[in-house]
């Protein structure tokens, strides 16, 4: 369980987050949604200790402020929005960096083939020998996901869950790989790990999230199960545009349909 308890973040003189609270349990994929500048990424950065914050963030009851980088690295991995590398590393070398913290009690040789398995999981089997800098943006993002998976390969170790923090993990990917990456994340959650993902795409959110936190202007607008957050009223309040939420007839999943204000106005005139 990740507990975020009335966290506020101030960058310079600007207050970015106001008293945000969230409980994200293991076994679930929790999505953070909101318009640009609503503080989604800032919240994730506070969670990663990249930003100073006030309030308390704890992992399974332990305040993260007091944990060493190595300790935290063994409990959670973070996928950044994008990463470029100044040196010509091969794909395998990048993925193997996920093992930087090592694994206490596990023989190094036993981890030798983990990068290959992680690459297979993100559909990049056979890419190990390619140079990272020569891949497309979408491929690089999947390499990074493989690296992150290497760091927390088992969602649960000895009953202790581990976590994936994803910052807009699919924003540069085509639809096939969006679904693939979200499937990987969902699987991690289903096997007992916890996932917190900042997402832009409301339909992917509807399809994958077990819980949703909706932010606007650094404040929580709604939080909880998708049925509660993905409603016309809440979404309009969050994004400031008319949106219609429907339920797919057979699958039963929700979907979100944007409504153009201008077209609606023109239609009413006609």
């Amino acid at each position, binding site marked *: 369980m990740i507990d975020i308890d009335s966290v506020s973040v101030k960058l310079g003189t600007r207050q970015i987050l106001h008293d945000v609270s969230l409980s994200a349990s293991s076994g679930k994929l929790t999505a953070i949604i909101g318009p640009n500048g609503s503080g989604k990424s800032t919240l994730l950065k506070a969670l990663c200790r990249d930003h100073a914050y006030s309030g308390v963030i704890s992992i399974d009851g332990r305040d993260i402020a007091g944990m060493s*980088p*190595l300790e935290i690295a063994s409990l959670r991995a*973070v996928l950044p929005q994008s990463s470029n*590398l100044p*040196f*010509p590393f*091969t794909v*395998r070398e990048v993925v193997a960096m996920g093992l930087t*913290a090592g694994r206490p009690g596990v023989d190094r040789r036993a981890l030798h083939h983990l990068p290959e398995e992680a690459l297979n999981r993100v559909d990049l089997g056979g890419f190990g020998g390619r140079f990272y800098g020569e891949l497309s943006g979408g491929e690089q993002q999947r390499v990074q996901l493989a690296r992150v998976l290497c760091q927390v390969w088992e969602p649960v170790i000895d009953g202790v869950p581990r976590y994936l923090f994803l910052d807009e993990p699919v924003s540069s990917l085509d639809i096939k790989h969006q679904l693939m990456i979200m499937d990987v994340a969902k699987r991690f959650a289903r096997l007992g790990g916890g996932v917190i993902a900042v997402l832009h795409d409301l339909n992917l959110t509807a399809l994958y999230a077990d819980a949703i936190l909706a932010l606007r202007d650094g404040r929580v607008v709604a939080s909880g199960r998708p049925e509660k957050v993905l409603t016309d009223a809440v979404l309009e309040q969050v994004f400031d545009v008319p949106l219609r939420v429907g339920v797919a007839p057979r699958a039963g999943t929700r979907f979100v349909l944007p409504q153009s204000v201008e077209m609606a106005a023109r239609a009413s005139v006609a």
Partner: protein
Amino acid sequence: MDSTMPLAASGARTRPDGDRSHIGRITVIALVFALLAAMVLSMTTGASGASLGNFLGALISGSEGADALRDYAVIVNIRLPRMVLGVLIGAGLAVSGLLMQGLFRNPLADPGLVGVSSGAALGAVVIIVLGGTAMAPFTTALGIWSLPAAAFGGGLVTTFVLYRVATRGGQTAIATMLLAGIAIGALAGAFSGVLTYIASENQLRDLTFWGMGSLAGATWIKVLAAGPIIFAALVFAGFLAKGLNAMTLGEATASHLGVPVQRFKRITIVAVAAATGASVAVSGGIGFVGIVVPHLLRLAIGPDHRYLLPASALLGATFLLFCDALSRTVVAPAELPIGIVTAAFGGPFFLWILLHRRSAFAW
């Protein structure tokens, strides 16, 4: 994420695609032999005809002929300290360059290019010129270590200032770094100029010789003064390899991977300043080793610092001994300052990097 752990590797171990660790290992071993060869070359090259054979023969037979004594003196008091100093400084300069490139996430960072050497030189000039007067308490207290210590201090201040100026939120802009380096170097150079202006005749001669960069004045005292500092920096650098790899992904990601980033940066900066400072203090400005050596090795074995660090130390030492042997033979019996030789290799090499690998840098 399967519930059964696939960790126990079954069957024969194959080398996965993109794993270059074997190339790194082989290169490090080969470089050990290259360094040994360079050490022999260094011991047998020189203006006097002293030969290692005579010396060893005398050592074994215990003969005390005039030739044997002279060769003993040449080898033990002149060539040996020069070789030891060459190994230490070559390794120190190459590793400093590599550490800076990792810290700044930039293949063009080098203590000589971005003003760190100038800062270290300023520290040394202060001691050379003011050692007998204003800085007398400092020199009395530190003795032979006052020169390297002052150069270390100068290097530390410049590296720190450079880092603060060029890095915002863990990202270093290459243009900012190079320009800041030029500015800092110029500033340090200006102060050195002022001190040179007020220097006495004798001090001026010291400054000129020292400034050109040379191993010619190597003595056991200098080895004792700079050696432990460089050696300590090299040992510390050895622990930074994994962190340097992680740092290439950016500071934030390195921290997410478990690297204690703030402490890591402090250790790196101190190691760079120590190795550069101590080298500059005893040998003046020897440029380009820190950029040529890591760059060549990155082409050969890839950027994995676990192999790049030892390989850079070994190749740096080999390269400097080779340049030193060259500097002693091209215009024998006189000798060229070694800084000129390394610059003659390094300048064109640097231009070559710029022309051929421009696309690899985020200009």
